[in-house]
């Protein structure tokens, strides 16, 4: 991949264009937080590479940039990008070694702003990017599936840590909002582990907590409905069809006319048809979703499966192939490819060749972290 363009000049922030009268006049040029690149050198580029899935390039860039970093927090930011890249690339042992190479524990005073008053006058608190704590918790389970319990334990410890942050009185509103998001994030991550361990009862308890919290804290409607839908999926997954229908009905009563929400409801309806083996109606619902939003990959993928249960293997293959061609960055995910390959295996005696063609195409367009094992070649 060619090098990304150098950082673009950043637009002025609202505070700079019209500084509130109460605030002392700040020189836009000396504002330490005007752009990402003010936070750490070349951060815009790193972020851009990460959203493009160019994790190999990030590894390179980190190696070259590290000697030029000047402040402690910059080292930690680059360290985080490096660690995340390794994990995204499934180089878990390297990631483990990298994490072990960190000189101090994440709670060490070495990672507090106030330890370096010359760099960070008037600043205090932890400069550790939160992601490091998350990756530290998740890594054991990634390295070895049998260590998943260790990851779950660490996530629960992390949850306590995050909740401890609310107790502080010097929190800015922005900070408080971030920590609340983090709490939510950690709970969701914990649910994800319990789900793969099929520990549904604890999942339900945790989701219940999240729903109650989201009702009280003014979360956006689409976020609340998204969360409830996931509850419905989980109920369906373990077989409670009536429970799922109740949940979906509850969502339907609350949504507004936005496409995102209409599609959520449409996909839920399709699922209810699907579990009732009415695949024709399910396909119809999915078609309506796709018409409203051509990028609704969930609808596309699930529609293809319904076609297959309707004995229409040829069309189910077509639906997935055309989605990959039309919206590759949206559609290219491991689950969709797994499904397509299962269909190939059924449809073609020479499926190995067909899958190889797909694999070559994937190698050209996929992000670095795409797991090509999903083609089962």
């Amino acid at each position, binding site marked *: 991949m060619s090098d990304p363009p150098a950082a673009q000049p950043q637009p*002025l922030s*609202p*505070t*700079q264009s019209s500084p509130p009268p109460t605030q002392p006049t700040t020189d836009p040029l000396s504002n330490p*937080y*005007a752009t*990402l690149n003010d*936070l*750490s050198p070349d*951060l815009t580029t790193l972020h851009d590479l*990460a*959203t493009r*899935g160019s994790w190999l390039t990030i590894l390179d860039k980190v190696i070259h940039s590290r000697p030029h970093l000047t402040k402690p927090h910059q080292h930690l930011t680059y360290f*985080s990008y490096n660690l995340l890249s390794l994990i995204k690339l499934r180089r878990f042992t390297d990631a483990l070694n990298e994490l072990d190479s960190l000189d101090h524990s994440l709670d060490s005073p070495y990672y507090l*702003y106030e330890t370096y008053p010359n760099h960070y006058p008037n600043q*205090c*608190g*932890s*400069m550790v*990017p939160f992601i490091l*704590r*998350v990756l530290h918790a998740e890594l054991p*389970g*990634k390295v070895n599936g049998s260590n998943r319990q260790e990851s779950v334990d660490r996530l629960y410890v992390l949850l306590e840590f995050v909740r401890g942050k609310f107790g502080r009185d010097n929190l800015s509103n*922005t*900070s408080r909002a971030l920590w609340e998001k*983090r709490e939510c*994030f950690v709970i969701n*991550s914990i*649910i994800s*582990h319990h*789900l793969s361990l*099929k520990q*549904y009862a604890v999942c*339900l308890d945790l989701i219940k907590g999240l729903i109650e919290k989201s009702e009280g804290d003014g979360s956006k409607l689409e976020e609340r409905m*998204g969360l409830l*839908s*996931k509850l419905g*999926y989980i109920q*369906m997954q*373990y077989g*409670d*069809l009536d429970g799922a229908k*109740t949940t979906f009905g*509850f969502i339907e009563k609350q949504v507004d006319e936005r496409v*995102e929400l209409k599609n959520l409801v449409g996909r839920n309806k399709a699922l209810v048809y699907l579990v009732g083996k009415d695949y024709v109606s399910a396909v119809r619902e999915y078609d309506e979703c796709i018409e409203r939003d051509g*990028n609704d*990959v969930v609808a596309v993928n699930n529609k293809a*499966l319904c076609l297959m*249960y309707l*004995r229409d*293997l*040829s069309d189910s293959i077509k639906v997935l192939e055309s989605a990959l061609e039309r919206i590759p960055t*949206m559609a*290219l995910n491991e*689950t*969709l490819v797994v499904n397509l390959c299962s*269909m190939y295996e*059924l449809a073609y005696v020479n499926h190995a060749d067909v899958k190889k063609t797909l694999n070559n195409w994937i190698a050209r367009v996929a*992000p670095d972290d795409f797991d090509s094992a999903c083609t089962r070649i």
Partner: protein
Amino acid sequence: MSSSATTSSTQGGSSGPHSLAFRVMRLCRPTFQVDTTPLRFDPFDLLAGEDLFDDNIAADNFASLISGIDSKYNGPDSSSDLTYRTRLLLDHPSDAMGVPGLLVLPQSFGAIYLGETFCSYISINNSSNFEVREIHIKAEIQTERQRIMLLDTSKSPVESIRAGGRYDFIVEHDVKELGAHTLVCTALYTDNEGERKYLPQFFKFMVANPLSVRTKVRVVKDITYLEACLENNTKSNLYMDQVDFEPSQNWVGTLLNADLHHSQEADKIREVFKPPTLIRSGGGIHNYLYQLRMVSQGSPRTDVEGSNILGKLQITWRTNLGEPGRLQTQQILGSPIRHKEIDLQAMDVPSSISLEKPFEVRLNLTNQTDRLLGPFEVWLSQSGLSSEQVVRVNGIQTMALPQLQAFGSSELHLNLVASKLGVQRITGIIVFETSEKKTYDPMLNLEIFVDAN
């Protein structure tokens, strides 16, 4: 079958290379994909120190930093987005749960259990360069006991399958037998040289028992309790849809539920959360308790011998995406009921009984059969194990009672006297049916308190 959901088969027949081949995939329901740790984050968990925005100047710049990051940060509107941002950034907090709603096809043949439905996608592929014609396709399940035809196109054969073409069908079969099963797919077709060819292919699988059901029957006074312990022998959690006791005609049964900790608040969230009954995979258990009562109190009973059949359990469960399963147990037998032909109940016992003073006990003798019994003689057995008979009959030792109509009853008064202080028992009342010369020991066990004068 093999570990892949699409299975290879053993091929029968020997007539050279075939133009056609069967491809088979077990088509159980799809599953929601769960990505453990999807590695999607809030951008500020990566870009900045976790406490950076404690700083007021940093906090004031938060909005402008966001706009510099990602125009899509405030919601997905991605028609022109050519990045893979959704693999890194969260759209909604719950995305971190890793359940995007994508369904995935069954990835392995999996285990199949009694009571489930075996469903299979069968595709017959023509991998040759020639058209084949006049194809008779059959699919059947063979077990040790029987053969069940699932598909037979002999009457209206498939006209042709072009080179590279396919003919697909889906078959279903309710699994009602344990052990080895074979899905036999056969095709009889005419190849390009006009030769009639026969292609049989066999797909084998085993059917296992999903549940073991252990029952215990206890009788407490007049009520029978049936305890059923269901153990899950499968590799998936079982969502118990219904575990119903279907009583035989003499019984009615009610499921007894422990009072669950129902929350007082009946708000809208809670109506969504009905706690499910899930039995964990690989040996999880759940107990059900039923209270059973005889329905025939007072009405003519059916023959005593047959009536210890309590009934059977109808069990339905669901697994992945509502995949159903159903089983019923064999008849569950109660403890053999010693149906008493006659019954003796105490009607009235004086509350205060004095030592060595006569007292009267009123008893009721019932004929529980549908025929005439009697006349009877009633006395107090002297051959009890206790060396000393504390309560004795006062006066005539044997009392005569007239005949009793079917289901009729009659009252009798026993005149007794107690010879010891304290709590004593009246035991050993014997009822003798004089016409059939049959002795009954109604096991009446009465406690009395004997006071000093």
